[in-house]
């Protein structure tokens, strides 16, 4: 059947595959094979100039070994860099040993390295209190004082009251 007859042309609108088949059978231009052969002969051969030497070919093992060596070098270099920058603190040649044993007549400091400064003792600044302190220390008053303290129901004297109260620290 001639695809170009009037009947087929009019009825070929739906039969589009004729067109495709026609295109798939286009005549090959003359001399195509010769031209392709000539093109292949003049084409530069692969890798004549830029070919890797056999020993340096990327697929060979030397590249893998070089990569491994480079990784080791970087890791070791980094470690050495950190080690060389961080200096260890100088160790003390003489160790201070705190004195052991309690001081005679008082509390011990339990081997503490530092003992804070403490107030030495109460300093009475009030005049009346100072007078009472003096009377308390005389021998005559000691006896009467003791008698007064031994009586159960008696109230403590004003001077005793002063004596028992803590004095205002001088440091204030």
């Amino acid at each position: 059947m001639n695809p170009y007859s009037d009947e087929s042309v009019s009825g070929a609108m739906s039969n589009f595959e004729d067109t495709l088949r026609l295109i798939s059978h286009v005549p090959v231009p003359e001399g195509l094979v010769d031209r392709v052969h000539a093109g292949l002969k003049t084409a530069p051969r692969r890798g004549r100039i830029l070919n890797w030497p056999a020993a340096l070919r990327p697929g060979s093992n030397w590249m893998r070994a070089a990569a491994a060596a480079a990784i080791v070098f970087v890791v070791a270099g980094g470690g050495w860099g950190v080690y060389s920058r961080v200096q260890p603190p100088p160790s003390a040649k003489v160790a201070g040993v705190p004195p052991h044993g309690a001081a005679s007549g008082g509390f011990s400091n339990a081997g503490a390295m530092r003992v804070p400064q403490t107030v030495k003792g109460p300093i009475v600044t009030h005049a009346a209190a100072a007078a009472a302190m003096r009377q308390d220390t005389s021998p005559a008053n000691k006896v009467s004082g003791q008698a007064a303290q031994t009586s159960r129901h008696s109230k403590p004297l004003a001077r005793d009251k002063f004596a028992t109260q803590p004095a205002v620290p001088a440091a204030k």
Partner: protein
Amino acid sequence: MEIPENAVSDQARQHAEEEALAALVSQYAGTLYRVAFSVLRNPSDAEDAVQEAFLRVLRHRDTLGEVRDNRVWLIRIVWNIVLDRKRRAKTRPETDDVSELARVLPAAGLSAEQIASAAQHHAHVLSCMEQLPAKEREVLMLSAFEELSSVEIASILDITESSVRSRLFRARNIMAGLLNHSRSLR
């Protein structure tokens, strides 16, 4: 002077590869040209594509022995080349021009009027094909080559055979719809 054994074997291998390549050119250049022409629809572009395909084969001639089906392998190479060229060119094929199509397509024993009418019809069919989705269009083009089975088309396009069938079915339906629509407008 003694010639090294490696040099002799290299030369023999190279000679064998060149002979195999020459045989491929003689056997498949025409097929590759037609495949390239079906996409590019331009004789000189199609010939360039064939040349480029064989240059690629020359570059990878070491792997020629591993190729299972030379024909499918070569068509796949030229198919990728022409699709790439078409994508880059983004121009309308030369043969969409009716007079150019009449010149290129075979028309032996026809009157001038018949040739013009046929060329007009073919140009219309090809313009309808351009409206198809790319996947369907590619399968439809390759199916026109009678020597290619659906398995081989699947291998060229790197899809499954069932995908080839379904795309071909869709492509035919769309084409029929497009052609009927244009006929009803006339």
